[in-house]
């Protein structure tokens, strides 16, 4: 079964280790992630100004491309892109005046009014495949790996686009359980990693990372499971700085959820590109005998 797929710019370069295991895993599960033709950068953040139109053009144009293909659902991997595309989609559904102006400006041939549904890969796994079915397909259970799910902001906020409960999300917990890991819940799993502050105040990133990582560690986590390339960068960088700043701080491997998925489905480590991960994941995986 073919799914319209929006990768986003980062997945093609820095976050190959998020995309490649995803494509391979979905194929193993019977789904083909079909890139939307001629997709462009979605803009990463959704413009929060009420009068702003130009910054909505980029995400809406991508949705039009999906509609032109005749598809009704768009799957994304990058949490930032999900947030932007989903919010723009809501705008086109609800705000008639802006919708008309945007359609008129873009002259893409067809009009768009929110016909496509934007979903995250985790939602496809939960709703279209199901945790039971996923469990059946697991060839290499993750040997109770104490993985702490970290959601960050963009998958859960604002409420209109959340893929799970805003206060107490469980989607990653269910996902990890199905893979045979031992999910470690911790209170700071939805706390922001600092996001784009990394370009204006890079020295603050360690302080954003501190409460998140310390909380995960103190709850017994051996690794963190992420969904967003920016969280990966910020937490990875934050970790390296905290080793110097905080005595006794222990660095942890940071995984993308798709890497653990590919590993559990028995697809092997090559497709996961662990060499791009922060926090030396290979040594932990070797320890757990998960690198066969």
């Amino acid at each position, binding site marked *: 079964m073919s799914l319209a797929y929006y990768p986003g*710019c980062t997945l093609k370069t820095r976050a190959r280790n998020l995309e490649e295991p995803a494509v391979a895993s979905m194929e193993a599960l019977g789904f083909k992630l079909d890139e939307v033709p001629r997709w462009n*950068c979605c803009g990463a953040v959704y413009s929060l100004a009420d009068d702003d139109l130009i910054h909505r053009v980029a995400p809406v144009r991508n949705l039009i491309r999906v509609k032109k293909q005749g598809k009704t659902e768009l799957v994304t991997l990058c949490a930032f892109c999900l947030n932007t595309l989903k919010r723009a989609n809501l705008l086109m559904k609800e705000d008639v005046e802006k919708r008309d102006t945007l359609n008129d400006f873009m002259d893409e041939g067809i009009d768009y009014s929110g016909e496509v549904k934007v979903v995250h890969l985790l939602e496809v796994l939960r709703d279209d495949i199901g945790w039971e079915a996923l469990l059946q397909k697991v060839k290499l259970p993750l040997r109770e790996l104490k993985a702490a799910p970290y959601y960050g902001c963009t998958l859960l906020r604002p409420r209109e686009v959340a893929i799970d409960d805003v206060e107490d999300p469980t989607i990653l917990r269910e996902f990890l359980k199905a893979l045979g890991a031992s999910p470690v819940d911790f209170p700071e799993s939805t706390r922001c990693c600092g*996001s784009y502050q*990394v*370009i204006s105040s890079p020295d603050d990133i360690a302080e954003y990372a501190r409460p998140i990582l310390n909380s995960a560690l103190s709850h017994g986590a051996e690794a963190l499971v992420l969904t967003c390339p920016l969280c990966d*960068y910020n937490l990875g960088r934050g970790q390296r700085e905290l080793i110097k700043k905080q005595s006794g701080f222990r660095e942890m491997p940071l995984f993308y959820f798709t890497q653990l998925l590919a590993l559990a489905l028995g697809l092997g480590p090559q497709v996961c590109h662990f060499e791009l991960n922060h926090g030396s994941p290979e040594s932990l995986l070797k320890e757990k005998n998960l690198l066969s």
Partner: protein
Amino acid sequence: MSVTISPKRLRREFVKKVKELSGQNLQLCYQCGMCTGNCPAAANMDISPREIIELARLGLEEEIAGSKTVWTCASCLACTVNCPRGFDLSKVMEAIRLLTLRKNIDHVRPEDIPPQQRCELPQIAMVSGLRKFTG
């Protein structure tokens, strides 16, 4: 902190523009402080998010302009999601940022980001940062 409130200092245009750009009714806020309590960046801010709302509806533009609060905000939406009155503080932050950016005054210059960082950062960091900090 002490602030002098007087009709001479109240910038009505500022209040009007903030309301227009954010689409928020500033009167909804009853200063409970949930936003500040949930804000991951609050420790780096000189004026807290809660105080920004109060200053904004009093039209005290100079106080807000002199603070780094809106530029320290990471648009994580923790404030919005936790506000008991359903008030969207992230939009007010954006509105205040835009009032400066739209005057062609940028907060960050791409050339000031160290070249090594430009190589290492994921594209979403550059795109989102330049959207929030440049006009």
